[in-house]
Protein backbone atom coordinates (compact mmCIF):
# COMPACT_ATOMS: atom_id res chain seq x y z
CA UNK A 1 0.00 0.00 0.00
CA UNK A 2 1.09 3.53 -0.66
CA UNK A 3 2.01 5.52 2.44
CA UNK A 4 -0.18 8.41 1.35
CA UNK A 5 -1.53 8.69 4.87
CA UNK A 6 1.80 9.72 6.39
CA UNK A 7 2.28 13.46 6.41
CA UNK A 8 5.41 14.40 4.50
CA UNK A 9 5.29 18.04 5.56
CA UNK A 10 3.91 18.96 9.01
CA UNK A 11 1.75 22.01 9.78
CA UNK A 12 4.77 23.98 10.98
CA UNK A 13 6.48 23.33 7.63
CA UNK A 14 8.96 20.65 8.71
CA UNK A 15 9.74 17.56 6.66
CA UNK A 16 10.09 13.98 7.98
CA UNK A 17 13.81 14.50 8.60
CA UNK A 18 13.19 17.88 10.25
CA UNK A 19 14.30 20.03 7.31
CA UNK A 20 12.54 23.15 6.07
CA UNK A 21 11.19 22.97 2.49
CA UNK A 22 14.12 24.90 1.00
CA UNK A 23 16.80 23.21 3.09
CA UNK A 24 19.36 20.87 1.55
CA UNK A 25 20.58 17.77 3.33
CA UNK A 26 24.16 17.98 4.70
CA UNK A 27 26.42 17.81 1.64
CA UNK A 28 29.94 16.44 1.68
CA UNK A 29 32.33 16.52 -1.27
CA UNK A 30 35.65 14.65 -1.17
CA UNK A 31 37.94 14.97 -4.15
CA UNK A 32 40.76 12.68 -5.27
CA UNK A 33 39.59 9.58 -3.43
CA UNK A 34 40.99 7.08 -5.96
CA UNK A 35 44.66 6.69 -6.84
CA UNK A 36 44.36 5.28 -10.36
CA UNK A 37 41.59 7.42 -11.81
CA UNK A 38 42.59 10.73 -13.41
CA UNK A 39 39.88 12.39 -11.40
CA UNK A 40 37.55 11.15 -8.69
CA UNK A 41 35.13 12.33 -6.05
CA UNK A 42 32.68 11.05 -3.47
CA UNK A 43 29.60 13.16 -2.90
CA UNK A 44 27.08 12.68 -0.11
CA UNK A 45 23.63 14.27 0.00
CA UNK A 46 22.54 13.10 3.45
CA UNK A 47 22.46 9.29 3.30
CA UNK A 48 22.91 9.22 -0.47
CA UNK A 49 26.51 8.44 -1.31
CA UNK A 50 27.89 8.40 -4.84
CA UNK A 51 31.36 7.79 -6.23
CA UNK A 52 32.42 9.30 -9.55
CA UNK A 53 35.63 8.49 -11.42
CA UNK A 54 36.97 10.01 -14.62
CA UNK A 55 39.55 8.60 -17.01
CA UNK A 56 40.85 10.54 -19.95
CA UNK A 57 41.29 12.08 -22.36
CA UNK A 58 42.64 8.70 -23.40
CA UNK A 59 42.90 6.49 -26.45
CA UNK A 60 39.54 5.22 -27.72
CA UNK A 61 38.99 1.49 -27.46
CA UNK A 62 37.50 0.24 -29.75
CA UNK A 63 39.22 2.54 -32.22
CA UNK A 64 36.31 2.87 -34.66
CA UNK A 65 34.31 4.79 -32.06
CA UNK A 66 36.64 7.79 -32.10
CA UNK A 67 35.50 11.07 -33.63
CA UNK A 68 37.79 13.15 -35.82
CA UNK A 69 36.71 16.52 -34.48
CA UNK A 70 36.20 15.95 -30.76
CA UNK A 71 36.55 13.68 -27.78
CA UNK A 72 33.75 11.22 -27.19
CA UNK A 73 32.27 11.28 -23.71
CA UNK A 74 31.17 7.95 -22.29
CA UNK A 75 29.18 7.64 -19.13
CA UNK A 76 27.92 4.80 -17.03
CA UNK A 77 25.60 5.27 -14.07
CA UNK A 78 25.16 2.23 -11.93
CA UNK A 79 23.72 1.29 -8.57
CA UNK A 80 25.77 -1.17 -6.56
CA UNK A 81 23.84 -4.33 -5.76
CA UNK A 82 23.57 -3.53 -2.05
CA UNK A 83 22.91 0.21 -2.42
CA UNK A 84 19.13 0.06 -2.23
CA UNK A 85 16.77 -0.62 0.66
CA UNK A 86 14.94 -3.93 0.56
CA UNK A 87 15.96 -6.52 -1.97
CA UNK A 88 19.38 -6.80 -3.58
CA UNK A 89 19.52 -5.02 -6.91
CA UNK A 90 20.46 -7.22 -9.83
CA UNK A 91 23.81 -6.10 -11.23
CA UNK A 92 22.51 -6.32 -14.82
CA UNK A 93 21.88 -2.81 -16.21
CA UNK A 94 18.21 -1.86 -15.79
CA UNK A 95 16.28 0.31 -18.23
CA UNK A 96 16.40 3.05 -15.62
CA UNK A 97 20.20 2.87 -15.43
CA UNK A 98 20.49 2.94 -19.23
CA UNK A 99 18.31 6.04 -19.42
CA UNK A 100 20.12 7.75 -16.55
CA UNK A 101 23.54 7.07 -18.09
CA UNK A 102 22.35 8.97 -21.16
CA UNK A 103 20.69 11.79 -19.23
CA UNK A 104 23.78 12.26 -17.04
CA UNK A 105 26.11 12.26 -20.06
CA UNK A 106 23.95 14.92 -21.68
CA UNK A 107 24.01 16.93 -18.44
CA UNK A 108 27.82 16.95 -18.29
CA UNK A 109 28.85 17.00 -21.94
CA UNK A 110 27.83 20.64 -22.64
CA UNK A 111 30.36 21.74 -20.01
CA UNK A 112 33.28 19.75 -21.43
CA UNK A 113 35.44 21.43 -24.10
CA UNK A 114 35.64 18.18 -26.02
CA UNK A 115 36.77 19.73 -29.31
CA UNK A 116 40.19 20.30 -27.70
CA UNK A 117 40.85 16.55 -27.64
CA UNK A 118 39.91 15.00 -30.99
CA UNK A 119 40.17 11.21 -31.35
CA UNK A 120 40.11 10.59 -27.59
CA UNK A 121 37.64 9.33 -25.03
CA UNK A 122 36.65 10.80 -21.68
CA UNK A 123 35.09 8.10 -19.50
CA UNK A 124 32.87 8.87 -16.55
CA UNK A 125 31.90 6.12 -14.11
CA UNK A 126 29.25 6.82 -11.51
CA UNK A 127 28.71 4.20 -8.84
CA UNK A 128 25.90 4.64 -6.34
CA UNK A 129 27.17 3.30 -3.02
CA UNK A 130 24.10 4.11 -0.96
CA UNK A 131 20.78 5.26 -2.39
CA UNK A 132 18.41 7.51 -0.47
CA UNK A 133 16.93 9.74 -3.17
CA UNK A 134 18.78 12.09 -5.48
CA UNK A 135 21.36 9.63 -6.79
CA UNK A 136 21.44 11.08 -10.30
CA UNK A 137 21.84 14.63 -9.01
CA UNK A 138 24.55 13.64 -6.52
CA UNK A 139 26.18 11.69 -9.36
CA UNK A 140 26.26 14.76 -11.61
CA UNK A 141 27.66 16.96 -8.84
CA UNK A 142 30.33 14.32 -8.15
CA UNK A 143 31.20 13.76 -11.81
CA UNK A 144 31.61 17.49 -12.44
CA UNK A 145 34.24 17.87 -9.71
CA UNK A 146 35.88 14.59 -10.78
CA UNK A 147 36.19 16.03 -14.32
CA UNK A 148 37.77 19.18 -12.87
CA UNK A 149 40.04 16.98 -10.73
CA UNK A 150 41.14 15.17 -13.90
CA UNK A 151 42.19 18.54 -15.31
CA UNK A 152 39.71 18.44 -18.17
CA UNK A 153 38.97 21.93 -19.50
CA UNK A 154 35.35 22.89 -18.91
CA UNK A 155 33.11 25.89 -19.52
CA UNK A 156 31.82 25.65 -15.97
CA UNK A 157 31.11 23.09 -13.28
CA UNK A 158 27.73 21.37 -13.32
CA UNK A 159 25.70 21.11 -10.13
CA UNK A 160 22.39 19.31 -9.72
CA UNK A 161 19.53 18.95 -7.28
CA UNK A 162 15.95 17.71 -7.33
CA UNK A 163 12.92 19.81 -6.50
CA UNK A 164 9.70 18.06 -5.63
CA UNK A 165 6.19 18.50 -4.37
CA UNK A 166 5.08 16.93 -1.08
CA UNK A 167 1.55 17.46 0.26
CA UNK A 168 1.30 20.43 -2.11
CA UNK A 169 4.49 22.07 -0.82
CA UNK A 170 7.51 22.61 -3.07
CA UNK A 171 10.65 21.20 -1.46
CA UNK A 172 14.26 20.80 -2.43
CA UNK A 173 16.57 17.75 -2.35
CA UNK A 174 14.11 14.90 -1.78
CA UNK A 175 15.22 11.93 0.28
CA UNK A 176 14.21 8.36 -0.58
CA UNK A 177 10.89 8.31 1.28
CA UNK A 178 9.90 11.73 -0.06
CA UNK A 179 10.79 10.65 -3.58
CA UNK A 180 8.67 7.47 -3.28
CA UNK A 181 5.59 9.15 -1.81
CA UNK A 182 5.68 12.69 -3.16
CA UNK A 183 3.55 14.10 -5.95
CA UNK A 184 6.43 15.25 -8.13
CA UNK A 185 10.19 14.88 -8.51
CA UNK A 186 12.05 17.24 -10.82
CA UNK A 187 15.83 16.78 -11.07
CA UNK A 188 17.71 19.74 -12.57
CA UNK A 189 21.36 20.28 -13.51
CA UNK A 190 22.78 23.71 -14.27
CA UNK A 191 26.09 25.28 -15.21
CA UNK A 192 25.76 27.85 -12.42
CA UNK A 193 27.98 30.72 -13.64
CA UNK A 194 26.46 30.58 -17.09
CA UNK A 195 22.89 29.93 -15.94
CA UNK A 196 22.46 27.21 -18.55
CA UNK A 197 20.21 24.24 -17.80
CA UNK A 198 21.82 21.00 -18.95
CA UNK A 199 19.37 18.52 -17.47
CA UNK A 200 15.69 18.86 -16.68
CA UNK A 201 13.31 16.00 -16.00
CA UNK A 202 9.96 15.76 -14.31
CA UNK A 203 8.40 12.66 -12.87
CA UNK A 204 5.03 13.69 -11.47
CA UNK A 205 2.47 16.43 -11.87
CA UNK A 206 2.97 20.19 -11.53
CA UNK A 207 0.87 23.18 -12.56
CA UNK A 208 2.63 25.72 -14.82
CA UNK A 209 2.84 28.14 -11.88
CA UNK A 210 4.35 25.51 -9.58
CA UNK A 211 6.85 24.61 -12.29
CA UNK A 212 8.15 28.18 -12.45
CA UNK A 213 8.54 28.42 -8.66
CA UNK A 214 10.21 24.99 -8.62
CA UNK A 215 12.70 26.18 -11.21
CA UNK A 216 13.75 29.23 -9.19
CA UNK A 217 13.92 27.17 -5.98
CA UNK A 218 16.26 24.76 -7.78
CA UNK A 219 18.51 27.56 -9.03
CA UNK A 220 19.10 29.04 -5.57
CA UNK A 221 19.86 25.58 -4.11
CA UNK A 222 22.21 24.77 -6.96
CA UNK A 223 24.17 27.95 -6.27
CA UNK A 224 24.75 26.71 -2.71
CA UNK A 225 26.02 23.35 -4.03
CA UNK A 226 28.23 25.19 -6.55
CA UNK A 227 29.95 27.04 -3.69
CA UNK A 228 30.60 23.71 -1.94
CA UNK A 229 32.04 22.25 -5.14
CA UNK A 230 34.44 25.17 -5.57
CA UNK A 231 35.42 25.05 -1.92
CA UNK A 232 36.17 21.31 -2.16
CA UNK A 233 38.34 21.88 -5.23
CA UNK A 234 40.21 24.73 -3.53
CA UNK A 235 40.75 22.55 -0.45
CA UNK A 236 42.32 19.87 -2.60
CA UNK A 237 44.85 22.24 -4.13
CA UNK A 238 45.71 23.73 -0.73
CA UNK A 239 46.66 20.28 0.58
CA UNK A 240 48.82 19.68 -2.49
CA UNK A 241 50.66 22.96 -1.86
CA UNK A 242 51.38 21.98 1.73
Amino acid at each position, binding site marked *: *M*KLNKTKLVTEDGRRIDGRRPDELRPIRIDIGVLKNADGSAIVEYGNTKVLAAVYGPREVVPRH*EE*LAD*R*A*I*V*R*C*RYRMLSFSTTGERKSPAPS*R*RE*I*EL*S*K*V*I*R*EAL*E*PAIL*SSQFPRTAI*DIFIEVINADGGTRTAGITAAAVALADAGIPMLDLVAAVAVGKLDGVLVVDLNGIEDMNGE*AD*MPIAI*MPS*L*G*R*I*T*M*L*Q*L*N*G*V*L*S*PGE*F*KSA*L*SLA*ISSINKIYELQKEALRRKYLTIEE
Partner: protein
Amino acid sequence: MSSTPETLLIPKIKYSAILNVISKGFHVDRRSVMEYRQLNITYNVAPNADSSVLLRLGNTQILAGIKLEIGQPFPDNPDEGVLIVNAEYIPAASPVYEPGPPDEDAIELARIIDRSLRESRAIALDKLVITPGKRVWSLWVDIYVLDYDGNLIDASMLASMAALANTYIPYYEVDQTTGSIRIDRNKKIMPLPINKYVATVTINKIGEYMVIDPTGEEEAIASGSITFSVSEDNYIVGIQKRGMGTFSTDEIEKALDVALNKGKEMIELLKKLTAVTK
Protein backbone atom coordinates in the same frame (compact mmCIF):
# COMPACT_ATOMS: atom_id res chain seq x y z
CA MET B 1 27.66 2.73 -21.33
CA SER B 2 26.21 5.84 -22.93
CA SER B 3 28.49 7.34 -25.55
CA THR B 4 28.53 10.56 -27.58
CA PRO B 5 26.51 9.68 -30.68
CA GLU B 6 28.12 9.87 -34.08
CA THR B 7 26.23 12.56 -35.93
CA LEU B 8 25.90 12.70 -39.67
CA LEU B 9 28.16 15.30 -41.21
CA ILE B 10 25.98 18.12 -42.42
CA PRO B 11 27.49 20.41 -45.05
CA LYS B 12 27.75 24.03 -43.84
CA ILE B 13 25.78 25.18 -46.86
CA LYS B 14 22.86 22.93 -45.94
CA TYR B 15 23.04 23.97 -42.30
CA SER B 16 22.90 27.66 -43.18
CA ALA B 17 20.16 27.10 -45.74
CA ILE B 18 17.93 25.40 -43.14
CA LEU B 19 18.81 28.01 -40.51
CA ASN B 20 17.99 30.79 -42.93
CA VAL B 21 14.51 29.40 -43.59
CA ILE B 22 13.89 28.89 -39.86
CA SER B 23 15.04 32.43 -39.05
CA LYS B 24 12.20 33.64 -41.28
CA GLY B 25 9.75 31.59 -39.20
CA PHE B 26 9.26 28.59 -41.48
CA HIS B 27 10.13 24.92 -41.67
CA VAL B 28 11.88 23.57 -44.77
CA ASP B 29 8.47 22.24 -45.88
CA ARG B 30 6.98 25.76 -45.73
CA ARG B 31 4.75 25.47 -42.65
CA SER B 32 5.30 27.85 -39.73
CA VAL B 33 7.92 26.81 -37.13
CA MET B 34 5.07 26.56 -34.59
CA GLU B 35 2.92 24.23 -36.66
CA TYR B 36 2.68 20.43 -36.67
CA ARG B 37 2.73 18.45 -39.89
CA GLN B 38 -0.38 16.72 -41.21
CA LEU B 39 -1.54 14.06 -38.75
CA ASN B 40 -3.07 10.90 -40.13
CA ILE B 41 -4.29 7.94 -38.08
CA THR B 42 -5.34 4.51 -39.36
CA TYR B 43 -6.99 2.24 -36.82
CA ASN B 44 -6.96 -1.53 -36.49
CA VAL B 45 -3.99 -2.20 -38.78
CA ALA B 46 -3.20 -5.36 -36.79
CA PRO B 47 -6.57 -7.00 -36.03
CA ASN B 48 -5.02 -9.55 -33.66
CA ALA B 49 -4.00 -6.78 -31.29
CA ASP B 50 -6.57 -5.46 -28.82
CA SER B 51 -6.00 -2.10 -30.44
CA SER B 52 -3.55 -0.89 -33.06
CA VAL B 53 -2.79 2.35 -34.76
CA LEU B 54 -0.65 3.43 -37.68
CA LEU B 55 0.13 7.09 -37.20
CA ARG B 56 1.68 9.36 -39.77
CA LEU B 57 3.06 12.74 -38.84
CA GLY B 58 4.41 14.02 -42.14
CA ASN B 59 6.75 11.23 -43.22
CA THR B 60 7.31 9.87 -39.73
CA GLN B 61 5.36 6.63 -39.25
CA ILE B 62 4.68 4.98 -35.91
CA LEU B 63 2.92 1.68 -35.31
CA ALA B 64 1.50 1.33 -31.82
CA GLY B 65 -0.29 -1.76 -30.58
CA ILE B 66 -2.03 -2.71 -27.35
CA LYS B 67 -2.29 -6.18 -25.88
CA LEU B 68 -4.37 -6.89 -22.80
CA GLU B 69 -3.29 -9.88 -20.78
CA ILE B 70 -4.20 -11.26 -17.41
CA GLY B 71 -1.37 -10.83 -14.98
CA GLN B 72 -0.46 -10.22 -11.39
CA PRO B 73 -0.41 -6.74 -9.83
CA PHE B 74 2.78 -5.23 -8.47
CA PRO B 75 3.08 -6.02 -4.75
CA ASP B 76 3.21 -2.29 -3.89
CA ASN B 77 0.07 -1.58 -5.97
CA PRO B 78 -2.20 -4.62 -5.44
CA ASP B 79 -5.36 -2.79 -6.51
CA GLU B 80 -4.23 -1.48 -9.86
CA GLY B 81 -3.73 -2.91 -13.31
CA VAL B 82 -0.24 -2.96 -14.81
CA LEU B 83 0.96 -0.64 -17.56
CA ILE B 84 4.07 -1.54 -19.55
CA VAL B 85 5.43 0.59 -22.38
CA ASN B 86 8.05 -0.61 -24.83
CA ALA B 87 9.54 1.06 -27.86
CA GLU B 88 11.74 -0.17 -30.66
CA TYR B 89 13.39 1.55 -33.60
CA ILE B 90 13.16 -1.06 -36.31
CA PRO B 91 16.01 -1.24 -38.87
CA ALA B 92 13.55 -0.57 -41.68
CA ALA B 93 12.93 2.92 -40.33
CA SER B 94 16.27 4.50 -41.14
CA PRO B 95 19.64 3.48 -42.64
CA VAL B 96 21.30 4.23 -39.29
CA TYR B 97 19.10 1.94 -37.16
CA GLU B 98 20.50 -1.51 -36.55
CA PRO B 99 18.80 -4.73 -35.49
CA GLY B 100 19.12 -5.65 -31.85
CA PRO B 101 17.60 -4.93 -28.48
CA PRO B 102 16.28 -1.38 -27.89
CA ASP B 103 19.13 1.11 -27.51
CA GLU B 104 19.25 4.02 -25.06
CA ASP B 105 17.18 6.28 -27.32
CA ALA B 106 14.39 3.72 -27.63
CA ILE B 107 14.47 3.03 -23.89
CA GLU B 108 14.34 6.77 -23.17
CA LEU B 109 11.39 7.20 -25.56
CA ALA B 110 9.47 4.36 -23.92
CA ARG B 111 10.17 5.67 -20.43
CA ILE B 112 9.05 9.22 -21.31
CA ILE B 113 5.72 7.86 -22.56
CA ASP B 114 5.41 5.48 -19.62
CA ARG B 115 5.96 8.30 -17.11
CA SER B 116 3.59 10.68 -18.89
CA LEU B 117 0.77 8.11 -18.84
CA ARG B 118 1.50 6.90 -15.33
CA GLU B 119 2.01 10.19 -13.48
CA SER B 120 -1.00 11.88 -15.08
CA ARG B 121 -3.14 8.82 -14.24
CA ALA B 122 -4.34 9.05 -17.83
CA ILE B 123 -5.57 5.45 -17.69
CA ALA B 124 -7.80 4.43 -14.78
CA LEU B 125 -5.60 1.49 -13.77
CA ASP B 126 -7.68 1.03 -10.61
CA LYS B 127 -10.57 -0.12 -12.83
CA LEU B 128 -8.48 -2.90 -14.38
CA VAL B 129 -8.66 -5.23 -11.37
CA ILE B 130 -10.20 -8.70 -11.83
CA THR B 131 -9.58 -10.30 -8.41
CA PRO B 132 -8.15 -7.72 -6.00
CA GLY B 133 -4.51 -8.37 -5.12
CA LYS B 134 -4.35 -11.46 -7.36
CA ARG B 135 -5.46 -10.94 -10.94
CA VAL B 136 -5.42 -7.70 -12.92
CA TRP B 137 -5.25 -6.65 -16.55
CA SER B 138 -1.73 -6.00 -17.83
CA LEU B 139 -1.77 -3.33 -20.48
CA TRP B 140 1.12 -3.70 -22.91
CA VAL B 141 1.78 -0.67 -25.07
CA ASP B 142 4.28 -1.49 -27.80
CA ILE B 143 5.60 1.22 -30.07
CA TYR B 144 7.48 0.53 -33.28
CA VAL B 145 9.08 3.32 -35.28
CA LEU B 146 8.43 2.35 -38.92
CA ASP B 147 9.83 5.36 -40.74
CA TYR B 148 11.96 8.15 -39.34
CA ASP B 149 11.49 11.78 -40.27
CA GLY B 150 11.89 13.58 -36.97
CA ASN B 151 9.86 14.16 -33.79
CA LEU B 152 9.49 10.55 -32.70
CA ILE B 153 8.45 11.36 -29.12
CA ASP B 154 5.40 13.49 -29.99
CA ALA B 155 4.36 11.07 -32.73
CA SER B 156 4.74 8.04 -30.42
CA MET B 157 2.76 9.69 -27.64
CA LEU B 158 -0.06 10.55 -30.06
CA ALA B 159 -0.02 7.00 -31.44
CA SER B 160 -0.10 5.46 -27.96
CA MET B 161 -2.92 7.72 -26.83
CA ALA B 162 -4.92 7.01 -29.99
CA ALA B 163 -4.44 3.26 -29.57
CA LEU B 164 -5.42 3.37 -25.88
CA ALA B 165 -8.52 5.42 -26.63
CA ASN B 166 -9.58 2.72 -29.08
CA THR B 167 -9.01 -0.25 -26.74
CA TYR B 168 -11.87 -2.35 -25.36
CA ILE B 169 -11.81 -4.73 -22.42
CA PRO B 170 -12.82 -8.20 -23.63
CA TYR B 171 -15.51 -10.31 -21.98
CA TYR B 172 -14.20 -12.61 -19.26
CA GLU B 173 -15.51 -15.12 -16.73
CA VAL B 174 -13.87 -16.14 -13.46
CA ASP B 175 -14.38 -19.81 -12.60
CA GLN B 176 -15.30 -19.67 -8.91
CA THR B 177 -13.97 -23.15 -8.05
CA THR B 178 -10.61 -23.17 -9.86
CA GLY B 179 -10.10 -19.42 -10.04
CA SER B 180 -9.13 -19.68 -13.69
CA ILE B 181 -10.22 -16.95 -16.08
CA ARG B 182 -11.75 -17.50 -19.49
CA ILE B 183 -11.50 -14.63 -21.99
CA ASP B 184 -13.67 -14.20 -25.05
CA ARG B 185 -11.95 -11.59 -27.21
CA ASN B 186 -14.84 -11.53 -29.68
CA LYS B 187 -17.08 -9.86 -27.10
CA LYS B 188 -16.15 -6.47 -25.67
CA ILE B 189 -17.59 -5.35 -22.36
CA MET B 190 -16.37 -1.77 -22.07
CA PRO B 191 -13.89 0.71 -23.48
CA LEU B 192 -10.61 1.02 -21.63
CA PRO B 193 -11.36 3.58 -18.89
CA ILE B 194 -9.46 6.78 -19.69
CA ASN B 195 -9.30 9.62 -17.16
CA LYS B 196 -7.72 12.17 -19.44
CA TYR B 197 -5.75 12.66 -22.60
CA VAL B 198 -2.05 13.48 -22.56
CA ALA B 199 0.14 14.85 -25.34
CA THR B 200 3.83 15.65 -25.49
CA VAL B 201 5.18 18.75 -27.17
CA THR B 202 8.87 18.70 -28.00
CA ILE B 203 10.52 22.06 -28.56
CA ASN B 204 13.77 21.87 -30.50
CA LYS B 205 16.51 24.44 -30.40
CA ILE B 206 17.99 25.06 -33.83
CA GLY B 207 20.59 27.81 -33.73
CA GLU B 208 18.93 30.32 -31.40
CA TYR B 209 15.44 29.48 -32.64
CA MET B 210 12.70 27.37 -31.08
CA VAL B 211 10.94 24.98 -33.42
CA ILE B 212 8.29 22.30 -32.98
CA ASP B 213 7.81 19.15 -35.04
CA PRO B 214 11.09 19.25 -37.00
CA THR B 215 11.70 17.01 -39.98
CA GLY B 216 14.58 14.53 -39.81
CA GLU B 217 17.05 16.89 -41.45
CA GLU B 218 16.05 19.77 -39.21
CA GLU B 219 16.33 17.57 -36.14
CA ALA B 220 19.87 16.61 -37.21
CA ILE B 221 21.04 20.21 -36.78
CA ALA B 222 19.12 20.87 -33.53
CA SER B 223 21.44 21.27 -30.54
CA GLY B 224 18.89 19.91 -28.10
CA SER B 225 15.24 19.62 -27.25
CA ILE B 226 12.88 19.78 -24.35
CA THR B 227 9.75 17.67 -24.16
CA PHE B 228 6.81 18.76 -22.02
CA SER B 229 4.04 16.23 -21.38
CA VAL B 230 0.78 18.12 -20.99
CA SER B 231 -2.57 16.77 -19.77
CA GLU B 232 -5.93 17.99 -21.02
CA ASP B 233 -6.58 19.71 -17.67
CA ASN B 234 -3.51 21.88 -18.32
CA TYR B 235 -1.00 20.28 -15.96
CA ILE B 236 2.62 19.44 -16.73
CA VAL B 237 2.86 15.67 -16.27
CA GLY B 238 6.43 15.10 -17.43
CA ILE B 239 9.52 16.85 -18.74
CA GLN B 240 12.65 15.57 -20.44
CA LYS B 241 15.49 17.64 -21.79
CA ARG B 242 17.47 15.77 -24.44
CA GLY B 243 20.61 16.32 -26.45
CA MET B 244 23.80 18.22 -25.90
CA GLY B 245 22.40 21.74 -26.06
CA THR B 246 21.52 23.86 -23.03
CA PHE B 247 18.59 26.11 -22.18
CA SER B 248 18.30 29.33 -20.19
CA THR B 249 15.38 29.71 -17.77
CA ASP B 250 13.85 32.24 -20.18
CA GLU B 251 13.97 29.73 -23.01
CA ILE B 252 12.46 27.04 -20.78
CA GLU B 253 9.56 29.30 -19.82
CA LYS B 254 8.93 30.26 -23.43
CA ALA B 255 9.03 26.60 -24.42
CA LEU B 256 6.51 25.82 -21.67
CA ASP B 257 4.04 28.39 -23.05
CA VAL B 258 4.37 26.85 -26.50
CA ALA B 259 3.87 23.37 -25.04
CA LEU B 260 0.73 24.31 -23.11
CA ASN B 261 -0.83 25.88 -26.21
CA LYS B 262 0.17 23.21 -28.68
CA GLY B 263 -0.58 20.38 -26.26
CA LYS B 264 -4.16 21.54 -25.97
CA GLU B 265 -4.42 21.83 -29.75
CA MET B 266 -3.06 18.31 -30.34
CA ILE B 267 -5.32 16.77 -27.68
CA GLU B 268 -8.37 18.38 -29.32
CA LEU B 269 -7.27 17.13 -32.73
CA LEU B 270 -6.69 13.64 -31.37
CA LYS B 271 -10.11 13.57 -29.71
CA LYS B 272 -11.73 14.60 -32.97
CA LEU B 273 -9.91 11.84 -34.83
CA THR B 274 -10.83 9.17 -32.24
CA ALA B 275 -14.48 10.26 -32.16
CA VAL B 276 -14.82 9.50 -35.88
CA THR B 277 -14.07 5.80 -35.36
CA LYS B 278 -16.63 5.32 -32.59
